[in-house]
């Protein structure tokens, strides 16, 4: 298993390299001159030229790209923000906890709501619970999260006055955003749990479990759920990955100082270093979540575990033959 994890970590290197090159290229060729934007429209041509010189912005594409990668690999240096002059890494690390907190809380909400509703509607197929859950899922998927966020603020902050509308100054500020995001992704988790569980419930081994005299609750919890979990874990992993980078809208609606807002701001200012660093960081977290999901698979299903082990063995045999 350790070998598998090690191999997967190595495989992340080309992915991240690809991300660096892609984002760098896009930002490089995006119209808009960072030096001009930094100094403002009133600045003289000489001053702009001087700033370009200073920041190395007038060098050719390949030189700048090579320099960027070299600095990351050799010194762990992601460059400095054009705007603030702060190291990019510091800016990211300052913002990331907020994003991570929002993503984790949202996933927690969506897991609790999605799993329980999914199980209920699968075990009570076509009942009113099932119909209610389906309606809820439809609503959850069709409402854009920023709209739901706005509506929630209007209701709970403006009209009822229960919760603060925006900012991050205490636990009260952390109720609405995760709820809005979480319920949004709970919808797809619920649908996936339902359909996966419905399929498993029809399997022969569920009949075997019933034939043992096992209680219906335990048949579902002990036998069916674990078998139904693989597709659900996949969806949860995807949601978590998306939430880590994509809660930009919700961060904006609730004015939370997260990574998404940092990147959006930096794109507007053509602050290349921050955008590149930020996207790279998100790609890294997404890859880690994916790895985590793959490891989870192995612990859920022993067949996948033995596949991972077999992969390692095959490699060994091949190298021996050579």
């Amino acid at each position: 298993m350790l070998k598998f994890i090690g191999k997967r970590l190595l495989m992340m290197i080309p992915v991240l390299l690809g991300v660096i090159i892609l984002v760098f290229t896009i930002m490089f060729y995006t119209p808009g001159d960072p030096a001009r934007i930094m100094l403002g429209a009133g600045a003289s041509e000489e001053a702009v030229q001087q700033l370009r010189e200073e920041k190395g912005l007038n060098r050719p594409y390949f030189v700048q790209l090579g320099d960027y990668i070299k600095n990351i690999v050799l010194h762990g240096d992601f460059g400095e923000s054009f705007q603030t002059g702060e190291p990019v890494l510091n800016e990211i690390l300052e913002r990331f906890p907020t994003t991570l907190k929002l993503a984790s809380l949202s996933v927690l909400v969506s897991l609790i709501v999605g799993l329980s509703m999914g199980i209920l509607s699968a075990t009570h197929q076509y009942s009113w619970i099932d119909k209610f859950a389906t309606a809820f899922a439809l609503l959850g998927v069709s409402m854009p999260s920023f709209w739901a966020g706005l509506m929630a603020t209007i209701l709970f902050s403006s009209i009822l006055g229960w919760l603060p509308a925006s900012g991050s100054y205490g636990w009260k500020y952390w109720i609405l955003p995760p709820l809005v995001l979480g319920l949004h992704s709970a919808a797809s988790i619920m649908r996936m749990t339902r359909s996966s569980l419905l399929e498993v419930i029809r399997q022969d081994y569920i009949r075997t479990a019933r034939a043992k005299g096992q209680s219906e609750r335990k048949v579902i919890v002990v036998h069916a759920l674990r078998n139904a979990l693989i597709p659900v874990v996949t969806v949860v992993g995807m949601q978590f990955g998306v939430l880590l980078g994509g809660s930009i809208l919700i961060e904006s609606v609730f004015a939370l100082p997260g990574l998404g807002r940092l990147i959006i701001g930096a794109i507007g200012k053509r602050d290349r270093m921050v955008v590149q660093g930020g996207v790279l960081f998100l790609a890294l977290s997404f890859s880690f979540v994916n790895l985590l999901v793959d490891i989870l698979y192995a612990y859920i299903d022993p067949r996948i575990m033995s596949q991972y082990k077999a992969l390692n063995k095959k490699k060994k045999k091949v190298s021996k033959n050579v």
Partner: protein
Amino acid sequence: MANKHFLEIKDLSIHYKTDSGLVKAVNNLSLNLDKGESLGLVGETGAGKTTTALGIMNLIPDPPGIIASGEIFLEGENILMLNRQEMRKLRGNKISMVFQDPMTSLNPVMSVGKQIAESIQIHEKLSKVEAEKRAVDVLEMVGIPGERFNEYPHQFSGGMRQRVVIAIALACKPDLLIADEPTTALDVTIQAQVLDLISNLKREQNTSMILITHDLGVVAEVCEKVAIMYAGELVEYGTLDDIYNHTKHPYSIGLFASIPNIYSEEKRLTLIPGLMPDPTDLPEGCSFCSRCNRAVEQCKVHNPALVETDPGHFVRCIHYEEGGAL
């Protein structure tokens, strides 16, 4: 209500409600079984054998299935009247079932040992450790080394998995074992092993058994009583000798005729022409009449009753009914 038999099924009818109509899977089926006795339930695919078995376990998938009528007495108690919890206490404990396909009957994410121990833990007041110890014994009883307790179903071959399924069924020493085509999914050499295993364990524990199969050879080896099913009905029912040596019903005769004879060279197998009737639209008269070589005009409208021709030998055919066509 004094019942002298260990298991007594009376007029059992099981229907499935489907979009294309009411499927009458089992119709007015009556059977008796004594302690330690084995009954072979024979019939072609779709004759209602498995549905009968699931009916006894009260595991008919509902919806769409319902037990439309009938009574099933186990040691004098009508088990169809039991509530869910009482029925659960019987399942896996007094009545066990071995399923047809060992490849899909085991939970792929639970070790085989735990799957056996589970059934012991449900029915006997044992700690987890004790139950697992018992499960190791049961594993060894079916010929699997106890060290393989922690392995998962995918690490076993088909024959070994069927042994595990049998171990689960026998773990609590049931009084009645229902084996639903336990050897169909296995190759011939393994079939013999599994059959031997079942009959030995059955003998040791004095278990009654219903063996569902379409293999008349298997029945002859293992069973004392035979019931032939056709389109959800019993058509002939009696001792092994009654059915094999004094075959009466035209369908049973057809079944035996379709077995190739080892002593004569045959190019083509003898078969019964036609197909079983659509269970959503069973004929008014005898359900076999369209394929029967002895059918008379009256068969089309009159469904004969099951009559006892010799003591213990029942046949459902107009030719053996009193005042029938003969």
